[in-house]
């Protein structure tokens, strides 16, 4: 009886084993074969494969169009270092977003963002990471007595001084730590986060040897301010306000070559300078008026505008907050 059972069991086991082996062999055979997808073909899969095909086609197209375009600019194309001071307020994220969208079109651009804050904020950190730009994120708080208060007019105290100086300091330190021919090439531009920049201005400034200048729109109480050029040289400045300043220009109206910045390690913006003399305080030590290089078609075109963004009205928000019903703080604006 026992042996019979054992024998039966043995057959079962053997059968079982054979079935398993056959199954395994079948599966292994199926592995290399093309799948007969008609039963499993969900519409989602179809769209995915179609989109993937489209994606590859577009990639090919882009690669081809890039190849047929004018030849790649040499790697020694000078980098434009854009120093932007910024501070937390309601429109900060919007301003930095649209600024980054402009910069994303400019090749060889390195964005140095300096926050007026005792530490780096997540809002700016996240924005910079998502932007796709090459960037450096710094921070430097303004001393309390130098800071503009809530209801101060914007011209009362100079803004962004410590932050721009910090940007310069970092740049000098970074280049000193890594010497090498290419590293010393470049152009430094101070771009405030609420201005508007056309893409041409960056190509104009790339060839700066010492300090280049151009007109700025909507500044100084006028449609535009500009250097007046005669015989290819700047002879005076066209401005409606205090034209006797050494350099009566706006921050957005000039760029300095990196070489010059590195050769003059002491030059920076003077926060104590009288109103409107901030730019002069920096440029005085670097260059004389006849050394200035006029750009933008001998300073006849406006390629950058000193726009300012309105402060959004928050009356209802403030009223709600007083009742404890303010909008969700977790939602970043």
């Amino acid at each position, binding site marked *: 009886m026992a042996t019979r059972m*054992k024998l039966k069991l043995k057959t079962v086991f053997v059968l*079982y*084993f054979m079935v*398993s*082996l056959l*199954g395994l062999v079948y*599966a292994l055979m*199926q*592995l290399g074969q093309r799948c007969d997808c008609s039963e499993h073909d969900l519409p989602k899969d179809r769209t995915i494969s*179609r989109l993937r095909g489209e994606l590859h086609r577009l990639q090919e*197209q882009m690669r081809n*169009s*890039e190849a047929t*375009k004018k030849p790649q600019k040499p790697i020694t194309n000078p980098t434009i270092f854009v120093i932007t001071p910024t501070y937390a307020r*309601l*429109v900060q994220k*919007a*301003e930095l977003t*649209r600024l980054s*969208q*402009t910069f*994303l*079109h400019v*090749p060889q651009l*390195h964005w140095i963002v300096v926050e007026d804050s005792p530490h780096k904020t997540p809002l700016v950190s996240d924005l*910079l*990471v*998502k932007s*796709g*730009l*090459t*960037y*450096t*994120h*710094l921070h430097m708080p303004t001393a309390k007595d130098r800071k503009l208060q809530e209801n101060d007019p914007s011209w009362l105290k100079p803004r962004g001084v410590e932050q721009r100086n910090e940007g310069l300091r970092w740049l000098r330190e*970074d280049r000193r730590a890594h010497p090498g021919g290419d590293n010393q090439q470049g152009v430094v531009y101070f771009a405030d986060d609420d201005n508007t920049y056309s893409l041409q201005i960056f190509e104009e400034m790339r060839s700066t040897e010492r300090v280049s200048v151009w*007109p700025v*729109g*909507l500044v*100084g*109480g*006028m*449609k*535009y301010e500009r250097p007046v050029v005669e015989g290819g040289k700047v002879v005076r400045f066209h401005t*409606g306000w205090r034209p006797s300043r050494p350099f009566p220009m706006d921050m957005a109206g000039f760029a300095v070559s990196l070489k010059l910045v590195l050769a003059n390690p002491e030059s920076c913006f003077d926060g104590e300078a009288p109103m409107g003399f901030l730019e002069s305080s920096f440029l005085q030590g670097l260059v004389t008026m006849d050394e200035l290089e006029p750009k933008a078609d001998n300073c*006849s*075109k*406006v390629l950058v*505008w000193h*726009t*300012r963004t*309105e402060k*959004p009205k*928050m009356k*209802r928000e403030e009223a*709600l907050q007083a009742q404890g019903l303010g*909008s969700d703080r977790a*939602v*970043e*604006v």
Partner: protein
Amino acid sequence: MPKRRDIVAFVLIVLPWTLLITVWHQNNVTPLLATRKDDRRLGRSNSRNTFALKESCSHQNHDIVEVERTEYVYSRPPPWSDILPTIHVITPTYSRSVQKAELTRLANTLLHVPNLHWILVEDSQRRTTLVSNLLQETGLNYTHLNVETPRNYKVRGDTKDPRIPRGTIQRNLAVRWLRETFSENSSQTGVVYFADDDNTYSLELFEEMRSTKKVSVWPVAFVGGLRYESPKVNTLGKVYGWKTVFDPHRPFAIDMAGFAVNLRLILSKPQAFFKLRGVKGGYQESSLLKELVTLSDLEPKAANCTKVLVWHTRTEKPVLVNEGKKGFTDSNVEI
């Protein structure tokens, strides 16, 4: 002895099954893995989040973040795709000192968006050279229209006639142009978005609205005197109200920048326009939307209306005191 044999038998049975199961499982997973690797390598293009972040090797301090953009293409605008729905952006604009600046930075934004068609409608008697040249230089796919708002309709200065919100006539002209250009039966997919020239738009917003089937909505910052206004979305993902302080009982308490309409829907309702006269402040958007869709049809975007992807920024009017009466600066220079 029999014990060992049993064990051997048992192992011999279990082993193939485990192998079979693992092989079967892998078969389903590998195709997905392959695509993920592909996405990584492509860098930019459609998904902006798949950047390979690389710390610049030569710099010891991690101050510089060099994003690997070997695949980035500075072609502006991105090449046209045959399957992505086109986004028709309707922007009314009018002449003022900041106009060129506003349009410049808006163009810089739009140049990143694939399959975008910009319909710019000037509030003017004829198309100005400033705008024509600007549009040509950008390289965008655009349509340049113009229609002048009759003087007695203009917003400022006339208290006798009821005001109409600025840009209405221009937007209606663009909608009419769309209806004349595209037939309802064409296979062209598209989305219509009303974008004012002084707002700020994130690139993510355009990708969110691309999948609009009827009307999609999302939060807008700095409107209605709040940090942001947003639709109220329930757990089923349906809009049931509006989170605003200013008249939340409007049929559609939403800003112009807070919704997008499927092109086919606009074409299928040829009588739907923004109402010109007799529209209370804040009811402009409702005057169009109530002809097109009901509240339950709305599609919430931006993570069920929890993210802010568009800001209703306004640009200060520049102070031009130093121009004086005659104009100090050369009027031939375009600003």
